[in-house]
């Protein structure tokens, strides 16, 4: 299943997300053909709006496009954070949540929901607590001014379970009639209520994070060696580690803040890419962004179009992702790890 990372592969990785977006924008209860979607999108960007049906315009621009944008940002972002953390921690099991950012953000969101904040308030409080959790993990791991990778991972584990316990506390005290269901549903992840306003806060942070990791993609290779070796190659290991952690935290924190916990993407996509294109992060980073975005668009389209009621995202990522991952593992024996 190995593919060469040459021009055709790169072209496919570049075009696939756009093609998927065009396809997904037409799928739903109000069905729009690819041709019509293309005409609407192209027409608007070309400034020619006369021939467009107002209904198609409204469905595409007010409902589906923000969701697709969010799916692209979350999918690409979570996948690339996973890739970065797996390189940084030299551990194939690392996920974007290894330092506890998702647990922290979940706690923040649950707290804000309990206090009856608006959607925007929930997003901001969640992001702040995500950052708090990672800062906590990182400072706990520091012993005499130095932090080893194993200490960082361990303290991430501790901080993560602590915030999970706090979430349970909030659920316990929440009003079971309306607050508890909304917290529970939020935690399962959904792109439903996302508008341009939420995107305006989340998107720049996610893009900044993805941009940073993309710029450092080759350096991730060196970062995955042992510390002395990396330093002896003239790499500023401390600065690189911190940059990657901050970038991945911004991505994951913003993602959880906008659409709750979306599991599996950060593990599934990087490993799929690793199997197809090999372990070089110069290839893994761009391919994770592309395939992560595609995967999330497909999942979200299934979530909103498969049944009359919305299916929570993490149920789908796990039920589709896990068997697919098992299939990959069984077929290849995990040789790419």
């Amino acid at each position, binding site marked *: 299943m190995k593919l060469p990372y040459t021009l055709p592969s790169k072209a496919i990785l570049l075009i696939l997300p756009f093609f998927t977006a065009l396809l997904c924008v037409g799928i739903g209860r109000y069905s729009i053909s690819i041709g019509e979607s293309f005409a609407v999108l192209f027409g608007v960007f070309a400034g020619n709006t006369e021939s467009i049906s107002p209904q198609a315009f409204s469905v595409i621009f007010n409902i589906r496009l923000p969701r697709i944008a969010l799916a692209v940002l979350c999918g690409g972002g979570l996948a690339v954070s996973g890739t970065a953390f797996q390189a940084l921690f*030299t551990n194939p099991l690392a996920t974007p949540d290894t330092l506890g950012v998702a647990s922290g953000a979940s706690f923040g969101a649950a707290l804000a929901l309990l206090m009856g904040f608006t959607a925007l308030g929930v997003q901001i409080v969640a992001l702040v607590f995500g950052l708090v959790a990672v800062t906590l993990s990182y400072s706990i791991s520091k012993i005499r001014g130095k932090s080893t990778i194993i200490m960082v991972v361990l303290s991430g584990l501790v901080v993560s379970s602590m915030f999970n316990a706090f979430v349970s506390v909030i659920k316990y005290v929440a009003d079971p009639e309306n607050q508890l269901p909304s917290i529970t549903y939020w935690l399962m992840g959904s792109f439903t209520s996302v508008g341009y306003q939420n995107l305006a806060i989340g998107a720049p942070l996610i893009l900044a994070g993805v941009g940073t990791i993309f*710029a*450092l*993609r*080759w*350096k991730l*290779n*060196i970062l*995955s*060696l*042992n510390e*002395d*070796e990396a*330093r*002896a*190659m*003239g*790499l*500023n290991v401390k600065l690189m580690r911190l940059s990657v952690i901050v970038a991945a935290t911004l991505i994951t924190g913003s993602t959880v803040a906008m659409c709750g916990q979306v599991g599996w993407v950060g593990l599934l996509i990087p490993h799929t890419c*690793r199997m197809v294109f*090999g*372990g*070089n992060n*110069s290839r893994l980073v761009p391919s994770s962004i592309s395939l992560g975005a595609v995967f999330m668009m497909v999942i979200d389209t299934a979530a909103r179009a498969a049944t009359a009621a919305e299916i929570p995202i993490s149920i789908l990522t796990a039920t589709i992702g896990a068997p697919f991952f098992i299939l990959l593992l069984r077929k290849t024996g995990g040789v*790419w*790890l």
Partner: protein
Amino acid sequence: MIFTVQHASFEYHRHTPVLKDMNFRVEPGQVLAVLGPNGAGKTTLLKCMMGLLNWKEGQSAIDGTPLPQIHYREIWRKIAYVPQAKNQPFSFTAEEMVVMGRNAHLGLFGQPGAEDYACARRAMEEVGVTHLRDKLCGEMSGGEMQMLLIARALSTQPSMLVLDEPESNLDFRNQLVILSAIERLARERHISCIFNTHYPAHALKIASHALLLTRGGESLFGPVREVVNEENMRGAFDVNVRIDEVWVDRKSYASVLALSVAS
């Protein structure tokens, strides 16, 4: 480039010095062998002298300029480190691994370009591992990996190589391959080499100078024939040895025979 260490000491815990008042000097094309029993601080010495650990007193210097006064990337363009070939990541190909040696020449967000890959290929050619180019590191033997790590260090185009026990864990033949590679780099390319070793015979074989460490943190530095002798070996290792010359085809080879543990 002339590398010097002057009046340097190091300790992990207060008042238990690991290395005391180290003094040595390595000139272009010289090979320095660092010898000493387990726990004498050979690896610690390498790390301290390259600045991966900080000396408690004294300093290392390149051409007279103390290391802390030189920008880190500048240091690592001149000194290349060859770690032991263990715990290497699986998923990089040989070429991807070797080109990492170019990092010290690249900027903060730099990526290797065509020139860097050409440099990596030349380095692989130089130590004879071109055939491994697309092989995964995880599928290599210990000998192949060690040669590859030397190639990676060479792709930096350094003035000095620092090798941490490059020939331990290798078989007979691979030990010779590594040693003659070091000897050739020093002689033909005038790269100074500092290597740690457990084998006094290997020091006598390729080194021009030797640095002998003892468990108390004392050290002895000088031309290899003066340092590696029967008396000093007994003093440092508590082993009675016999050092002889063996003549084969009118060429002399040093042989170090361990006789017994000294009481």
